[in-house]
């Protein structure tokens, strides 16, 4: 199932290149992670909780020290040229790491001068758009408002790579929709790229161009989103159709008294006669993820 990026890309337009990345912990291992992201595109990093998404992002941000592999951001080494790279990265993490005892204005006064290209006008525009009061203490903001504040900080210094680590977890659908609209608008600028990690894959179906699926510390696939959705099929049918040869064609299978449902990447193998008795649907990213995760849990790679 494992495959590397099938798209041959022009290296000058690559914003992020990760090659053979590895990090070892006592109870978890991130192994041989390889993917890349071009200017003007959104990459969705998906996988269940604890699969290695945050570890990958922390390695890119040099918050964790890699044990193996190479990370290049804007064609530069992510450790040697850390300061230059981080000037052009906007980040939003799943939790607020800004100092809650400070007000929005105070926090901005500390952070803004560190960026070479801070755009105060743009920051004020986002505060208004997000309905954020600069005199408000960060601790007093709701989770959604904290994420909006992080987003305002991330988008106000002409960042070319926006890294979002589970920004929508724990947020209501209205805010999630709002965030996606902002990102969609942001991508009108073709010099920017977004790396968006989430386990809420429906968020990505709207905006992602590429999907990298990580499970148990390994890349299962990295591919164009449409190719992923086209490659897999969700098949439903009555139980009497199932025999051992058909079962082998499925990545995962769920049986109930009313019938079966299974995910396959080999729809052509199933005979047309059989297909007529089945319902074949295009799966969602969520369904693909669930079936692939369950397959790995059963010990099949």
């Amino acid at each position: 199932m494992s495959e590397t990026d099938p798209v041959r890309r022009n290296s000058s337009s690559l914003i992020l290149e990760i090659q053979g990345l590895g990090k070892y912990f006592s109870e978890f291992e991130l192994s041989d992670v390889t993917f890349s992201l071009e200017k003007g595109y959104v990459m969705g990093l998906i996988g269940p909780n604890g699969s290695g998404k945050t570890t990958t992002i922390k390695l890119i941000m040099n918050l964790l020290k890699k044990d193996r592999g190479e990370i290049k951001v804007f064609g530069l080494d992510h450790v040697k040229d850390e300061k230059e790279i981080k000037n052009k990265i906007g980040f939003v993490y799943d939790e607020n790491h800004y100092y809650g005892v400070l007000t929005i204005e105070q926090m901005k006064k500390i952070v803004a001068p560190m960026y070479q290209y801070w755009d105060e006008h743009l920051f004020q525009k986002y505060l208004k758009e997000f309905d954020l009061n600069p005199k408000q203490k960060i601790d007093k903001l709701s989770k959604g408002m904290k994420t909006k504040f992080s987003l305002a900080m991330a988008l106000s210094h002409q960042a070319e790579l926006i890294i979002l680590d589970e920004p929508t977890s724990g947020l209501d659908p209205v805010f999630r929709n709002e965030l996606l609209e902002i990102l969609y608008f942001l991508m009108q600028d073709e010099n920017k790229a977004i790396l968006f990690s989430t386990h809420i894959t429906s968020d990505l179906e709207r905006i992602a161009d590429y999907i990298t699926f990580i499970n148990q510390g390994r890349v299962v696939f990295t591919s164009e989103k449409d190719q992923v959705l086209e490659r897999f099929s969700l098949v439903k049918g009555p139980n009497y159709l199932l025999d051992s040869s058909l079962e082998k064609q499925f990545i995962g299978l769920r049986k109930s008294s009313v019938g079966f449902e299974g995910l396959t990447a080999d729809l052509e193998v199933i005979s047309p006669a059989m297909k007529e008795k089945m319902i074949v649907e295009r799966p969602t990213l969520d369904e693909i993820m669930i079936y692939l995760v369950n397959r790995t849990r059963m010990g099949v790679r």
Partner: protein
Amino acid sequence: MWRIILKDLMVQKSNIFIIIFLCISISGTMYRSPGIAGVQLLLGVYFMLIYANSYDFKYNGEIMINSLPINRKEIVLAKYLSAIVYALIIMVIIIPESMILYLFNFPGLTGSIQAIVSFLGIVVLLLSIYISIYLPLYYRLGYMRSRWGNFISMFVIFGLIGAMGQLIKIPAGELKTTNQGLEQLTAVLNGYAGPVIYLMMLVVGMVLLVLSFKVSVRIYKNKDF
């Protein structure tokens, strides 16, 4: 880097007011009792460092700081400079206040400018020893686990002051205070050694801080968040 120092001051704004209040409330301690002022200075820096680090711990702020365009060496340097800034803030409060009280010949005040210089020399050395021990421990063990190390290093420094006073057993002369150790040591150095020894103390303090800084940078550069 200065923004990180500013952040450490801003997050503990309410605590700084408490420390300023304490400094002002113990009026004229520098002249009446350099020992108390020394303890005040050491404890002030101790608390301000702990408070600043506790906010980094509470918000996991190092993840945010390390995601900004600033390298790890600068972050560590900012922490060392913060400690020096805390000491200066407390000195700026204590010294002028004491001098004003001295000029107005406040009843009960004793001491001399030379006594203050002697006292400062020793306190600066002790402060350097304290910071040099605590900060590498903090970077190595993290906030929670380093708290005991911090407490113990402060305890050892006060113990050293007491022990030195007992060993020297020379009357403190013009300096009368409850902290005999520090003042007896001050009196000895003041009377017999002159400015050379204070310069040496300053140099030793600086060397310790530089060595400690290098150790902290080495630890911090390899740290995972």
